[in-house]
């Protein structure tokens, strides 16, 4: 029973992974690609790890390591995404020409 619930979580995570990578191929801009790929792939991988935690039978050795990896991914992935987008905007990569607003350029003109 609990193996089937774990397989369900692994399947949901795989769907999120494939759709996030499809957005990484499909979308037109660096920032759109970053948003699609980072959110979808982080949630999908956390779902896969939670499915591994359930399918390995609860608090065994594998399950506890999977929970630690979930905490690690949730802490580190937004930090790296923020650093990439900040560096890309500082290095002068332009937005897509149909983008509506650029709040980072309106807030500060280059400093801080």
């Amino acid at each position, binding site marked *: 029973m609990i193996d089937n619930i774990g397989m369900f979580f692994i399947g949901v995570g795989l769907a999120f992974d494939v759709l996030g990578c499809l957005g990484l191929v499909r979308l037109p801009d660096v920032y759109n690609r970053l948003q699609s790929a980072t959110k979808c*792939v982080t949630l999908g991988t956390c779902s896969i790890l939670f499915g591994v935690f359930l399918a390995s039978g609860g608090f065994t050795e594998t399950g506890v390591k999977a929970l630690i990896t979930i905490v690690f991914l949730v802490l580190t992935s937004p930090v790296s995404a923020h650093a990439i987008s900040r560096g890309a905007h500082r290095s002068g990569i332009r937005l897509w020409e149909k983008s509506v607003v650029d709040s980072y350029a309106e807030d500060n003109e280059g400093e801080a």
Partner: protein
Amino acid sequence: MIFGRWILGTIVLLVLMGLVIALPFRSVFFENNPTHIGFVGRVVYILILASLMVLFRVTRGPTAADRIVAIDIFGILIVGLCAVLSIATGRSWYIDIGIAWGLQSFIGTLALSKYLEGKSFDD
């Protein structure tokens, strides 16, 4: 001709998903090869498909930031693959490989984004 490109992309994606779903049942199509791979094999095939999409963005990225994003996403996919291999083989040290890979990918992404920003590392 953007409508034709949409149709072509849909056909390519459906063929790839059909191959991924049909490959574990290879014993149906080839009688003398009775290998049945099962659930874990199908998971690994779908992760390989996602990794091929990521590697397409690594090779064809117009700017350097696209390549850095793709490398970061590739590292997170590797963590999921290590977890699935751990449940397949029943050995818990595959998740250790995943944790170490995620840590290295995080530090490497931070360093590359600092390099992209154009400042020194101790800023």
